[in-house]
């Protein structure tokens, strides 16, 4: 395990400036309600505007509609978007992972069909991993894909599916053959499923505050043609693990509360802040500087062709706990009775953080699972 310090090159700094100017014009402070990290509003026109700049699917090759940029370039765009609280929800999953998975494991047909549309900011994807009886023990998934003429018939249930009611496509980890003795990772495959398919039913699972993000997706003999299998049949676990390396360790794992911190300062205006609040700012800014450096060095590792599974697990575990710590400290230090419909934007954002942040250390792999992955890596065991 090694995190090398890295700095942004002149052209990377130019990209950073360009993104900041774009945001200032498109979402001037005071004119938009900032989102909290990757759980951002879906705003397709905004996604398409970003795509016009080449900032969606930017690390994908030009031949497939991308911009041939690097993981670090994507890091720069993403951190500015999240820090600003931009509505990146529509293209988020496709940009972060699905595009890379299709590029890496998909057929040319699939690349042609999906990648240019992803890069135009048109397509929204959901992720189909968890099931009612398979959460942290993901390899135990039991939703079945059975052979049918020209394709597969899907039966079973996926759960906690964010945005299935609004997205276009669903990348699912499915069981295409039964578990082999002693090897539950075998027999899994990744399939691309149209969320409008016959037999596919989407039911909302209201979030604790009544809002609608999660869904349960039920498959009743849903037909998926052969051309929608991603990669090789039976290689789903390996592909899924690779996908996780893209999913973990990025700015979305530590920047969620940042727009709230900014808003606190914005609303404080000229009121002198107490010494305890000054110290809190010192602590947060220092930690942000340190964690960002680690996260950026993971992006550099990806660009050098490595799959930094352990490094990204360590950063995600630390980053998501830090997000919760930030909010806890704000609650301890700022004397106010926050409310979700306060006239103060800061209070509204803080309320939203309090209610949603327990999920930050759960989504995309609980921190307990991440610790187990990282600890195996530290001991030199296979992850």
């Amino acid at each position, binding site marked *: 395990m090694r995190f090398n*310090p890295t700095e942004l090159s002149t052209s990377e700094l130019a990209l950073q400036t360009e993104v900041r100017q774009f945001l200032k014009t498109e979402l001037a402070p005071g004119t938009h309600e900032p989102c909290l990290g990757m759980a951002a509003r879906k705003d397709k026109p905004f996604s398409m505007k970003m795509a016009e700049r080449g900032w969606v699917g930017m690390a994908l090759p030009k031949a497939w509609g991308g911009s041939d940029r690097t993981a670090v370039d994507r890091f720069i765009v993403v951190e500015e978007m999240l820090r600003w609280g931009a509505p990146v929800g529509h293209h988020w999953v496709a940009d972060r992972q699905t595009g890379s998975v299709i590029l890496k494991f998909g057929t040319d047909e699939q690349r042609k069909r999906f990648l240019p549309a992803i890069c135009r900011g048109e397509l929204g994807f959901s992720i189909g991993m968890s099931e009612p009886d398979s959460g942290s023990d993901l390899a135990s998934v039991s939703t079945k894909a059975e052979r049918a003429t020209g394709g597969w018939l899907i039966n079973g249930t996926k759960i906690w599916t964010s945005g299935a009611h609004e997205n276009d496509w669903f990348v699912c980890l499915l069981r295409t053959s039964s578990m082999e003795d002693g090897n539950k990772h075998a027999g899994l495959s990744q399939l691309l499923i149209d969320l409008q398919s016959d037999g596919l039913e989407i039911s909302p699972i209201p979030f604790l505050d009544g809002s609608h993000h999660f869904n349960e997706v039920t498959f009743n003999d849903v037909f998926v043609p052969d051309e929608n299998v991603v990669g090789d049949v039976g290689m789903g676990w390996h592909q899924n693990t690779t996908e996780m390396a893209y999913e973990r360790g990025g700015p979305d794992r530590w920047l969620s509360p*940042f727009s709230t911190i*900014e808003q606190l300062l*914005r609303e404080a205006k000229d009121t002198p802040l107490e010494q305890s609040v000054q110290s809190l700012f010192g602590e947060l*800014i220092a930690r942000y500087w340190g964690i960002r450096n680690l996260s950026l060095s993971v992006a550099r590792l990806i660009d050098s062709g490595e799959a930094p599974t352990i490094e990204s697990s360590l950063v995600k575990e630390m980053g998501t706990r830090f997000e919760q710590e930030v909010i806890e400290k704000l609650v301890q230090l700022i004397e106010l009775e926050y409310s979700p419909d306060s006239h103060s934007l800061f209070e509204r954002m803080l309320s939203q953080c309090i209610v949603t942040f327990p999920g930050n250390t759960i989504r995309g792999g609980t921190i307990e699972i991440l610790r187990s992955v990282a600890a195996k890596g*530290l001991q030199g065991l296979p992850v």
Partner: protein
Amino acid sequence: MTELIVDELITQTANRLFSEICSHEAIQNAETAGEAPEIWAAYTETGFPWISIDENLGGSGGTLLDALEVLRLIGYYAVPVPAAETGILGGWLLSEAGFQLPEGIVTVLPDQGPDLAIKVDGSQVSITGSAIRVPWARSAEIIAILFHDDGNNYVASVQASDCVITPMTNMAGEPRDTVRFDGVVSSYAEVSAAIDAQSFRLRGALSRVALMAGAIEKMSQLTVSYTNDRVQFGRPVARFQAVQQHLVWAAQDAALSRMAAESAGIEATRGNGAFETASAKLIANQAASRATKACHQAHGAMGMTQEYPLHHYSRRLWSWRKEYGGDAEWSQWIGQLAIAQGADGLYPLITGGSRVL
């Protein structure tokens, strides 16, 4: 911007030397004796103490970043020598003032209390009062003292033998002596305006950050290896999730403080890096607190013994986290700086650091 990297030969040589001369027993003996002349002698043969100091003044050349890499390894092996004091602190002050470096140990006054009076008298100064927690004063040849007088900054080069030294120690048994000056007369020379109390304090903090990053990494590695060897309930304790939590948290703090130390080192080598150094010290202080707790817990009773080496690192960290600024000092310093940037300037400060200030 040219990329700054450490000469790999320095890392290799330091690793080889320190693993040879710095056994568990050697560190323990140094603590009992209050000094380690043999280790110091072997260390000086490499020229390491004077890296980053001008060769014309008796230094070894090289960059500040190179010197910090040696300090990181000094921390990693708990080498019982005044490396920071002789090199990037004391050696730096003397060389900035144009003094030739002495052959022996140099030390500095980390906390210059108000009861120290330095009176300029022509070509000499006269010093009266006392200073506490002076590292290795008992073994030093020269005490380099930075002072301000009539709008200018100066460095006095004091013969340690002219002072009254009372041996004291820190939590790790490292010498932190009380030094009394009874009208000690010494030579002095002017340094540039940039070398003031704040830049000295930051440089002290930077030295501790490098040492701490090394010590936290070593503790983290010791913990991984101990929990793999220790078998309970029929399997290595490292297989238990509750123990894995400690391994992971310690590894994160090792990675975080090393990243902070190296990033701050790069900016400081370029000539600024105040924001980065302050942030790195705060990060390392907090990482030290968390990591010592995690590593001790994972070691169980064994970590509480003198026989097992964990304490060489944990006790040093408990001291170093308070030297050259604890959490309160640096969080306040960074907080005021950050708030002055305003809401829109906060993130640019995180990404751009000292360069946007």
